[in-house]
């Protein structure tokens, strides 16, 4: 029950995109389609789970003064490892997400959760927090990517819903990212009452 509430907390109550408004660069930069958004979300989730786990394991060994640099080293190593694994096993995805993979290092969500959650809780809870926040981020990115894909190209996950000729191309381009996210946040806040 406790773990379930940690999960739920990450997905809804502290949703990184809709509530905490963190990690906006990848949110806007990689959501030109639902698949791209989902890949970015999952990549971030992988780093988040491992960084939460490792940091909560080693938290008692780290002196307070070098806390942040140590966290950054751990996160940066995980991101580099992820980068190499993606290059090796999912080169297509790696190519689409490009620069945003190394930039997971400076995603405020990761360092924020390390500081706010993993540094104060045990390894198991931290893993669940990573999964919850990661899922919340993935859902938000997939949703935004899906909306932009439908409005922009008339497709969803690559399946044609209506002719591309009627699509509003603007939503695939940069301005559409901002506008779609703005309305999405407004709608989510209204419906979820958060």
């Amino acid at each position, binding site marked *: 029950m406790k773990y379930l509430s940690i999960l739920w907390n990450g997905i809804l109550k502290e949703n990184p995109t809709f509530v905490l408004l963190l990690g906006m660069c990848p949110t806007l930069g990689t959501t030109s389609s639902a698949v791209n958004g989902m890949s970015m979300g999952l990549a971030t989730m992988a780093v988040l789970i491992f960084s939460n786990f490792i940091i909560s394991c*080693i938290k008692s060994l780290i002196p307070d003064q070098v806390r942040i640099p140590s966290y950054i080293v751990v996160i940066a*190593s995980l991101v580099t490892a992820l980068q190499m694994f993606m290059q090796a096993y999912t080169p297509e995805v790696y190519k689409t997400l490009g620069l945003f993979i190394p930039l997971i290092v400076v995603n405020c969500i990761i360092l924020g959760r390390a500081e706010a959650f993993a540094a104060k809780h045990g390894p198991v809870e931290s893993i669940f927090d990573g999964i919850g926040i990661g899922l919340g981020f993935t859902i938000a990115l997939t949703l935004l990517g899906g909306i932009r894909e439908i409005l922009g190209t008339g497709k969803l996950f690559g399946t044609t819903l209506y002719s591309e000729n009627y699509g509003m191309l603007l939503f695939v381009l940069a301005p559409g990212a901002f506008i779609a996210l703005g309305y999405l946040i407004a709608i989510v806040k209204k419906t979820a009452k958060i």
Partner: protein
Amino acid sequence: MLCVLTLISVIAAGALAYVNKMTAGPIEENKARTLAEGINTVLGVSDAQVQETKEVEDANGNPVIIYATDKGVAVQAIDPNGFGGKLSVLVGFADEGSIKGYTVLEHAETPGLGAKAGDWFQKGQKGDIIGKNPGEKELTVSKDGGDVDAITASTITSRAFLRAVNVAFHAYAGASAQADAQSGASAQQHAKVAPEEVTVPEVSAEGQSQN
């Protein structure tokens, strides 16, 4: 406290070195496979074996890579002036110089507009260039007096794409003329396109609007 930070850094670097070693193989394999798949696609076969790889430069000093395989020749060429930057294509040629197939390797064009180049010029599509021979007539968009339909609202991308294809052709023709001359065979077929004629048509400054 510095010890702890140093220790963490050393462990991290060690772990990364291990992961790097572990993934180096698959990354290389991937690159080779992507290239092989690209060559197969543009030549319309499934088992082309690269026999010779040659790197030359076009008139502007951009690299052109010629892959001679047992099933035909594929040429990789770039045009630096697409709408969003560099546009890189791989084009397969039949013996007489007509285009067998192409694929866009790398581009930074506008999603939904210029990015359509991957499909637009394929067989049966509006801008079909398959089977055309750039040696008989340089490929240019209809706006510039050519006979290829440009991608709707993306003239600049289309021009850049066709320039890259033309560059690829000239490199191919130059290379095969050379090979023919070396082997003593008749170079008649390619005589009209000697290597020094490798030029890139200038794009006119007008009509630069896209979107």
